[in-house]
């Protein structure tokens, strides 16, 4: 079959049309990333009077610093937990809402609300609820003999930031899952039901595989969210403590660069963070995506 092809003879026009997007990418991404790369090889006083090129000194210092390696490990725990919890809870909610015919819209609206809460505000709300002195949850846990003090107990601090960060992302995941579930053809599940498949069997063998593009997309988004966007939540709840138990890579970049004014080390850390995320995304697209059925 012959297809009709439209030909644009103008060679310049496509580039012209791309200019705004390219300009935004260059100004807001490539330029700052280049600056970070440059500073990561330098040692500089905060005011920028003296700049010395120090080769890989900043990187060498990072990898010999047990605090940094600890931070890598904490970030891995944090990112995996946040992604797993926020995705599984939102999938559960989406499946539940999808079964409701009339009130579905109402629940959807309610469940989207947390997404509108700014990370710092969300962090403060959680800080307030979990506050060892005035919080409601430590008070309730005390009734069960659990002594909650995330100021001292690192595992509890990690639980707190994971819950706060996952809660924030549930709305977003939920919306995508609801949309994904609605595009699963009803006829398939009905056919399976007639063949005698129960609800669980139908979900795992039909709905879940058909949902895999959404799940895959959300997984990338969630890992990126956990690694980059959770800084506000951590700052408002634990400030990376106690004893570095919740000091994730992105929070350490902030603490060393903005509070500590150590620009060289902070830049080296952000370059490392950039590399980690690029690597993760490549791995996901090359290996995980193969198992996705579009």
């Amino acid at each position, binding site marked *: 079959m012959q297809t009709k092809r439209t030909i644009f003879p103008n060679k310049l026009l496509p580039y012209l049309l791309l200019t705004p997007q390219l300009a935004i990418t260059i100004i807001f991404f490539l330029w700052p990333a280049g600056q970070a790369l440059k500073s990561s090889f330098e*040692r*500089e*006083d*905060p*005011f*920028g*009077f*003296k700049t*010395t090129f120090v080769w890989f000194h900043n990187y060498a210092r990072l990898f010999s610093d047990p*605090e940094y390696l600890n931070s890598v490990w904490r970030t891995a725990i944090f990112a995996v937990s946040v992604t797993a919890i926020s995705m599984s809870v939102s999938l559960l909610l989406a499946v539940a809402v999808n079964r409701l015919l009339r009130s579905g819209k109402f629940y959807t609206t309610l469940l989207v609300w947390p997404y509108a809460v700014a990370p710092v505000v969300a962090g403060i709300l959680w800080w307030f609820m979990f*506050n*060892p*002195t*005035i919080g409601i949850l430590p008070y309730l846990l005390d009734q069960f003999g659990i002594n909650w*003090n995330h*100021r*001292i*107990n*690192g595992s509890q601090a990690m639980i707190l930031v994971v819950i706060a960060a996952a809660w924030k992302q549930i709305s977003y995941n939920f919306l995508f899952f609801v949309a994904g579930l609605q595009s699963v053809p009803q006829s398939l599940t009905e056919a399976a039901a007639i063949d005698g498949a129960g609800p669980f069997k139908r979900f795992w063998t039909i709905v879940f595989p058909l949902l895999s593009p959404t799940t895959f997309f959300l997984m990338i988004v969630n890992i990126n969210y956990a690694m980059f966007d959770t800084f506000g939540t951590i700052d408002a709840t634990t*400030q990376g*403590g*106690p*004893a*570095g138990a919740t000091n994730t890579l992105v929070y350490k970049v902030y*603490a*060393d660069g*903005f*509070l*500590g*004014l*150590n620009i*060289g*080390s902070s830049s080296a850390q952000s370059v490392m963070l950039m590399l980690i995320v690029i690597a993760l995304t490549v791995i996901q697209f090359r290996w995980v995506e193969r198992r996705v059925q579009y």
Partner: protein
Amino acid sequence: MLRITAAAGLAALAVTLTSSVAMAQTEIAWWHAMGAELGEKLESIAQGFNESQSDYKIVPVFKGTYPETLTAAIAAFRANEQPAIVQVFEVGTGTMMAAKGAVYPVYQLMADQGEPWDVSGFLTPVTGYYSDTDGNILSMPFNSSTPIMYYNKDVFEKAGLDPEVAPKTWAEVEQFSQKIVDSGAAKCGFTTAWVSWIQTENLSAIHDQPFGTLENGFGGLGTEFTFNGDVQVKHWDNLKKWADSGLFQYGGPVGGSDAPPKFYAQECAMFMNSSAGRAGVILNSKDFTPGFAPLPYYDDVTTDPKNSIIGGATLWTLNGRSPEEYAGVAKFFTYLSQPEIQADWHQFSGYLPITNAAYDLGKEQGYYAANPGSDIAINQITRGTPTANSKGIRFGNLTQVRDVVDSEFEALLSGQKNAQEALDAAVERGNQILRDFEAANS
């Protein structure tokens, strides 16, 4: 929320001011870190100056916390958009002093502009803390504080203690706390804000122990930390012991944001915090009577506790603004130095009276007699003769070092390390930060 209100208030203020005065004024930006009541008071001081003359207008801008303000000023300096005046906390003093090209020293500014500048008018601890090696003051002292102890008189009474007698020594703190907890008068004996500043830096000064070599860093950038000595180890060891037995509760890193609620909610009977916390304590102690006392000391280490050291902030003038602005800055600093302004700010906020004249004025007004406990801070910081160990501390990148101290203290509390290991680790990590600073600034 706070920031929005502050910004809105500022905008309103700016509108009213611009509409009422002529356009020939020179505007001078003043970046500061005072929120809530203190911020409003600061703005009223600026307004007072603006109304006192018509050539210059000070425009205060709230920039967030102390570290945020410092970072914002440095970023602005690099972009050539710096304010003429910026408020920098005492922890940033080392960083600012090392940045010679960025700073217009206040003594030089006042001399250049022909404004009066009398160093001897300031309290000795203030001049001691903020002078460079040549004895010149580089920034304008504004809000200086020192830690003191607050206690709950009602809880003391309930526990069978004399509410008018606060513990003087750490042994008494332990003994009183035990009695308070045992009697059920409160759940915990004491809590503290600022573990690094109060329980480590000030502890060292009061017991005349070095915090670092080269006169606690005053002697140069080659300084190294030494705060892992016997006294500090003993104190941290005790804090861990008391935390385990419930006598002491930890209030969190940096400023210890969980500590004030513990005291206000009467969960902890004693609370160590900056003297500038006084206004907050009075405001939040509607249900009980607060008492004020000096920081405790170990009487088996010293019988003559030294002065405590300074916290708070000073005003730095940054280079790169116009000569007219500097003339205005000098006039404003002269205005700020007046005893009436100083005494008003000190009495409102709980910060120290920075000049002797302001202190004398307060005495004349009968302020200290009418407000028991309001002179604890000044008496504590001026007692005895300061030694090299109690004059203060001066280290570059101190914000980062304090984070390290907090983090090692948390490692101690959670049982990962003992006091000696935690302090050794803090010293080692702190020294690396000092070497970074030395390398970047020499």
